[in-house]
């Protein structure tokens, strides 16, 4: 056991090794580790942000769905109103038309009745004239007694 040249050699080897570690190993590894912590911090921040955005998007989606539902309700209400209106209109139109038809039929009947009455009257007049001429035994001039006949006819 003695001190010899090995001491000097070992010191040199040690110095070189420390220099090597200091230059090529330590900064690289430490830098890389710092880079990783930076990345992790970024990742965490991004995740946080993502969650916030997700929550916001959910809120927006909810709002849109709510709005759409309201809008749908509105549309259905409107459609129902419109349908009711249409039915009412149709009902109105139908009853007007019916009334018109009834009125027209009444008119027609009135007209027919009048016409029948006229012709009856005329026929009654004629019959009366014929009857009278039979009674009197002579021809009654229809023209001379026209006034009388028509007067008679109106009285029937």
């Amino acid at each position, binding site marked *: 056991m003695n001190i010899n040249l090995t001491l000097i*050699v*070992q010191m040199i080897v*040690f*110095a070189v*090794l*420390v220099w*090597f570690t200091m230059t090529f*190993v330590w900064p*690289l*590894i430490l830098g890389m580790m710092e880079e990783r912590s930076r990345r992790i911090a970024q990742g965490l921040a991004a995740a946080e942000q993502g969650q916030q955005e997700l929550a916001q998007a959910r809120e927006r989606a909810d709002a849109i769905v709510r709005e759409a539902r309201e809008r749908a309700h509105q549309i259905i209400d409107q459609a129902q109103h419109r349908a009711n209106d249409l039915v009412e209109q149709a009902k109105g139109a139908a009853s007007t038309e019916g009334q018109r038809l009834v009125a027209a039929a009444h008119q027609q009947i009135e007209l027919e009745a009048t016409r029948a009455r006229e012709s009856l009257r005329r026929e009654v007049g004629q019959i009366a004239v014929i009857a009278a001429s039979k009674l009197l035994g002579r021809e009654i001039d229809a023209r001379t007694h026209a006034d009388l006949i028509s007067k008679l006819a109106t009285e029937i």
Partner: protein
Amino acid sequence: MAAAENAPSATEYILHHLTFLSNKAPQGIVDFSVINYDTVFFSVLLAVVFGGSFYLAARTATAGVPGKFQNFVEMMVEFVDNQVRDSFHGTSKLIAPLALTIFCWVFLFNFMDLVPVDLLPAVARGIGLERLKVVPSTDLNATFALSLTVFILIVYYSLRMKGMVGFISELTLQPFNTKNVFAQALLVPVNFILESVTFLARPVSLSLRLFGNLYAGEMIFLLLALLTLSSGFGGLTTVGGWLGLLAQMILGLAWAIFHILVITLQAFIFMVLTIVYLSMAHEHH
């Protein structure tokens, strides 16, 4: 274990394991013409293992999902970084990589102690080397190289942060000081002796602590190996031979498991004390 016919004596065996593979036998305690090839070889090899693997990990490191090895390297770096942040309050680009290097390199030094004591020397004998000491931290040269380098850094940072005057006053004006100039002049040499001892004890204790722990650990493994030294495979014909083998296996396992704690702890202590010493060098009193 050598075969029974040419088995070395216990003394020869232990001496063989405690002698370095060097260019020549050292003359005296300090002899700079001697070099321990095994220590240099294994420490350079382990430096390459550490530097290479960490460099590879650093090169291929991604900030994305890390692989298993990258994870391990990051764990080490973070562990060392935390240690440095806890004890060192200045700013320095050097301290943290230095601490990482010390921890990993010393750990690998110590880890060689867990390689079976006769395995690599046997391989060395196979390629014609008569001896091989595989644990660099059982070489005082290796541990002193670490602690002296740290000591030089301590002196350098002390001078740089406090200036020559600050550094000298730190060595001479404490722990005893007084307002009385005359008394202070008397106290300066006392302070200087006390502080110098404290100051110089740092690298010595740093390296001797590591060396002592690992040397003792290796010695235990060697002593356990002695249990089957004389018998070899031939000893397995006797009950005593089997008992020796069993004892060596159980005790060796127990010591190796305990030693995992020791080698990690010693590497950790070396690193933390380095950080603390350099931190003290940075701080004003």
